[in-house]
């Protein structure tokens, strides 16, 4: 187990498309999952880390909403997520995000309020989850890292905050 260094912008690897995880039974992959979990636990208020953020170019991420300074009442607990696919989106919500890879910067980002996501757990078993609110936001942020996207690519105009708008569909 090791606490890994988080790559920060403008590191080019943060902009790369990550490769699918082909086998989950390789010891190297299991070691990487443990490293990601330990790295997430070691960083204050860290609710998720995607493998590309530590220079591991695979479609793998970990999430723990409980690590938030004010955890949401409902969240899915500790998740190890391989090869995630978002199956459906509904509703939209603007919320502030901060990224380990862009230190000292936060911005308002529009995300789907509810998502249905299919993925493989750390044993490679297929799973499906419906996530809402903060957990859905974290999942969308981390999946973006697998596609080389940073939240700054999705910042919404602060003037949109001025317009009354339904938060849910």
């Amino acid at each position: 187990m090791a606490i890994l260094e988080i790559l920060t912008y403008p590191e080019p690897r943060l902009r790369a498309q990550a490769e699918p995880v082909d086998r989950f039974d390789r010891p190297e992959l299991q070691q990487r999952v443990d490293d990601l979990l330990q790295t997430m636990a070691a960083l204050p208020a860290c609710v998720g880390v995607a493998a590309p953020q530590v220079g591991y170019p695979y479609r793998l991420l970990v999430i723990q909403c409980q690590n938030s300074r004010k955890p949401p009442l409902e969240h899915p607990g500790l998740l190890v997520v391989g090869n995630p696919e978002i199956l459906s989106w509904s509703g939209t919500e603007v919320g502030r995000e901060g990224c380990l890879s862009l230190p000292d910067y936060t911005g308002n980002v529009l995300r789907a309020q509810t998502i249905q996501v299919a993925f493989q757990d750390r044993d490679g078993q297929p799973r499906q989850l419906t996530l809402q609110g903060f957990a859905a936001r974290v999942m969308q942020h981390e999946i973006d890292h697998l596609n080389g996207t940073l939240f700054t690519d999705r910042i919404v105009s602060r003037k949109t905050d001025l317009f009354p708008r339904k938060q849910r569909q």
Partner: protein
Amino acid sequence: MRDPVFFDLTELRSFVHPHAMNQRALLTVAGRDRPGIVARTTQVLFETGCNIADSSMTQLGGAFTVMLVLHLPPALSCAALAARLQPLVDAMRLTVHVHPLEGDMAANSSANRAQKATLSLLGADQPGIVFRTTQLLAEMGCNITDLYTRVLGSAERPVYSMVIEVESSDSSELPPELHPRLAQLEKQLNVEINLRIADSSLM
């Protein structure tokens, strides 16, 4: 490309010692909104070797307003910068002011640990909305880092919309009385006020 006229010896020194570029100035520009205000202003800044630190540029009504914190190169005074902007002022009928700023930006060090929130207000337009809301925030010891308002709706039924970025004045949390006090104000003004505490999670 920089204009070679401005490569005099005093300015060249700033390339040898980049930290010599430390005189700061606040530049404000305002005028009737039209294409090119930002481009032509920043062209002058680029040509004179000014660095843009923080900036806010926005359209307000029919006017365009620019506020910039600049780092001036050692050879350039505020007056000299104002003189360089003069042709632009004349051509685009702008109001320009260059104001020297004291001190450095190190005062921001505690701001990163301050708790942040976004206050949004929506309701029928009436006198005193901004005053009474900001007075309450001042009483609670909250800092305002950003405030913007807009009148929405029809001329007969104007709706006032305001968004304020708020933070605690030190590294502590925002005062717990803030929520109930805002709820009181909401009733008094008959508006909707929503306070969203920023999540400081990292992902």
